[in-house]
């Protein structure tokens, strides 16, 4: 199948729509605002009326790209993908705000912010500075922007190379931008957990996967970002390395969004895609095969677990639940909420912030009610949003495993 045909294959999935409305009942955005007419309307319905002419349905911009509609569709319509592509056309025609250009480029932020982290963090937490940022570029003053770590994961990794003798499972770790610039500790723990399970972890050269660009409708740049990334990962995949990701949304970019939304189709992507695993998926598969180390120490804590929308897009269920369930004395409360609202960069935007917070309000309420020691969640932007919405510390599942393995 050529890229063009694959592209059409995704769009043509609108033919499967029987109008059943299940996507609309699942849509977290339509649930809180009438400004978004819903995924069925914007997706398979409106797509039939979109010609080659100008984009006429600005309401499409309220879609957060969470992908729950595609997940929910019992007929196989790629609702979110159709919407993302239509929105990209719209944004190309209407012009992409400087704000979206900025927040869509984490490596740029990282490279600028990391060396001057204290200053950058001060600015980001300064009310006046944030008010100015809201007025000038449209990033909401209260939105949960991450803090720069002041060091990068890659600099740590250079100082801590894997011993040549370590492990027989060959894993290439795809850490993503956020781990590198904002949460290097997560990367350190992920490497340790993988190594503990007999993985020999290598760190391919890598840059941004282009997901924020894609979700902001900047497809051309997103395509070149993801092509560059897979070109770096493909040699490892061809040598039989499993590519393991801790950023569940960036992993999903490699698995299917690059192909289904951006229309990228090449051998590099194909081989990388088929060998990319979310870290919990990878570890849970080891567990299914009876090969996961289960020498867990008791962790007498109560945690909530929220599977973010992008994690659900992997269509693998919630492997983190199975993994956390192996840890003695750990009480895990599964939260049945679709989305925290942030949806990558959506909730940062001045005009979307309130919607995002309303989307997340159910989740926040559940977490507050559960009074957990930690709120566990696979996706970085969701963790920041959860902390913003609840005041609770939020961690990735492997951070809990790291602790249970006694690796600290």
């Amino acid at each position, binding site marked *: 199948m050529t890229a*063009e*045909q694959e592209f*059409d294959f995704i769009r*043509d999935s*609108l*033919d*499967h*729509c*029987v*109008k*059943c409305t299940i996507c609309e009942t699942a849509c977290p955005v339509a649930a809180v605002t*009438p*400004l978004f*007419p819903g995924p*069925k*309307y914007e997706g398979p*319905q*409106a*797509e*039939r*009326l*979109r*010609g*080659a*002419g*100008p984009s*006429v*349905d*600005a*309401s499409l911009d309220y879609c957060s790209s969470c992908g729950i509609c595609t997940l929910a569709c019992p*007929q196989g319509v790629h609702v979110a993908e159709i919407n993302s592509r239509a929105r990209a056309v719209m944004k190309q025609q209407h012009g992409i705000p400087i704000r979206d250009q900025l927040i869509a480029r984490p490596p740029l932020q990282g490279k600028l912010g990391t060396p001057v982290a204290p200053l950058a963090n001060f600015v980001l937490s300064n009310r006046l500075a944030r008010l100015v940022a809201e007025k000038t570029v449209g990033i909401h003053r209260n939105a949960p922007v991450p803090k720069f770590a002041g060091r990068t994961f890659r600099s740590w990794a250079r100082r801590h190379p894997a011993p040549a003798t370590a492990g027989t499972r060959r894993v290439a770790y795809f850490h993503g931008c956020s781990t590198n610039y904002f949460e290097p500790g997560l990367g350190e723990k992920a490497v340790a957990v993988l190594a503990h399970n007999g993985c020999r972890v290598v760190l391919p050269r890598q840059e941004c996967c282009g997901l924020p660009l894609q979700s902001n409708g900047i497809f051309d740049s997103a395509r070149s970002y993801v092509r560059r990334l897979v070109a770096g990962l493909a040699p490892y995949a061809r040598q039989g390395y499993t590519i393991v990701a801790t950023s569940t949304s960036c992993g999903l970019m490699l698995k299917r969004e690059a192909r289904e939304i951006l229309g990228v189709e090449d051998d590099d992507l194909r081989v990388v895609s088929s060998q990319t695993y979310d870290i919990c998926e990878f570890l849970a598969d080891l567990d299914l095969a009876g090969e996961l180390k289960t020498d867990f120490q008791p962790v007498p804590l109560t945690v909530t677990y929220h599977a973010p929308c992008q994690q659900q897009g992997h269509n693998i269920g919630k492997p983190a639940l199975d993994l956390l369930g192996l840890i003695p004395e750990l009480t895990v409360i599964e939260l049945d909420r679709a989305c925290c609202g942030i949806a990558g960069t959506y909730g940062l935007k001045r005009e979307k912030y309130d919607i995002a917070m309303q989307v997340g309000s159910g989740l926040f309420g559940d977490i507050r009610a559960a009074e957990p020691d930690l709120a566990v969640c696979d996706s970085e932007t969701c963790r920041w949003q959860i902390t913003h919405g609840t005041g609770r510390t939020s961690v990735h599942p492997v951070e809990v495993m790291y602790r249970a393995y006694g690796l600290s």
Partner: protein
Amino acid sequence: MEEGRNQNVRLGGVAATGAAVECEVLVVGGGSTGVGVARDAAMRGFSTVLVERGDLATGTTGRFHGLLHSGGRYCVKDPQAARECIAENVVLRRIAADCIEDTGGLFVTTPIDDPDYADRFVAGCQATGIPVEEIPVAEALRREPRLNPRISRALVVPDATADAWKTVWTCARSAMEYGAKILPYHEVIAVTKDGDQVTGVIARGQDGAEVQIRAQVTVNASGAWAGRIAAMADCKVQISPGKGIMIATNHRLVQTVVNRCVMPADGDILVPIRTVSVIGTTDITVDDPDDWAITRTEINQMLESGENLVPGFTSSRAMRVWGGVRPLFQDHAPAESRDVTRAHAVLDHRARDGVGGFLTITGGKFCTFRLMAQDAVDAAGKVLGVTRPCRTADEPLPDSQERRFYQLSSRLAEREQTLLDEQLICECELVRRGRLEDEAARRPAPSLDDLRRAVRLGMGPCQGGFCMYRATGILHQTKHLSGAEADRALLAFLEERWKGYYPLLHGDQLRQAWLDNWIFQGVLDVQHLPLADQPRQQETATGQAT
């Protein structure tokens, strides 16, 4: 601009008075030709009445694929028809822009086509005045990425698509604004004569009441049914009804009209019209324009034709199949239907049959309807002894004054403005509640199928599954339908829809049909609607598969 601003015009209702109606020009037939004649005659100041046995545009006009010919299709085989097409193509773009989408057309040589025809085609276009430009195959594929990549030639002509219903309704509205009376659901049961002079007709209304319409000249514009009307006046008109079937896909696969560059043949055209693509068509001579069937073989033939133009066509969602009968006129015994000229003729029956005050306008095609009307009214003027100039080539139809072509996205753009303010009744075709209610208010007893044609209610993928309960409930609540009428209307619509898709049910459309069944039979239990009699079998099977 969107249609639906017809609020000032109400239809029908004359029969109820029981009074005789007098006019100068009486038109029999409410297709594009008949309505065109009525508008032309009214614009020339003749008092005009039109009778139609069903709703407007429910015969051949409402049952074609929507192509506004450039004439390219006929440029080699039937140059006269081609010249008429291109001339009228230009006129209609000027006067009916709102009903036309300027899609452009491509003639492509596919792997199964005679490679030499393209040169004859170019010569034919040049000879008949059709603008034609050859473009590289790669450019054609860039414009239409789904097109068969193995095409060898690609020629651009000014084909377009036209919404036949919208055109007819807008013409009718204009005719009424000029004083014409338009009487749908008035079936001619007799042509009245005084000696060898036709004096009008007796028509039966929906309620069974008969109305006498007296006219100085009667114009038979009943298309494929013209022989039947003529016979009522003891005149002979030989029509060779040519059946063509068409299949609509769930969404547009091409944005340009795509023709096979061959002599006219079955399955030679794929037309993007409104939200769908239509593959057409066959051409089989039938005996009776009201009695014929669609066969599985024809359906498969059309789907395979689609596959030849657009690989993957057969796996896309086929939504609905229907057929129409072309009114091909010939003076001699019928030959193969494709060999009959597509040009039109005005027959003055005084000369042919010794019957005065009676004209038949026949042959032709949708895109020449205005010219046909002009010729017919010219002839009527002669009969009346009055010469008044035709103005239909210059005066735009209502809503077309600004000469902006219809855009596929117009309803989406319109809906965007009313997202919070108005209910959306048909979600597939974005029919607003106001549009439905306005249209219902213009009709004495609206059937859901009439509303479907008028506002595209239930024309989309779910084929009424989601909007028909809504429409029934609204029409009952607003007292346009009594309880019994509502129950019957809903069941009649469900029967009608079923007939349009059961012959090709598979894949996605089958899943849709099952969900619709669940809604109507499972959830609503329409089988046990108390006020409907057993659903009546359709008396006429026009265009329905059997």
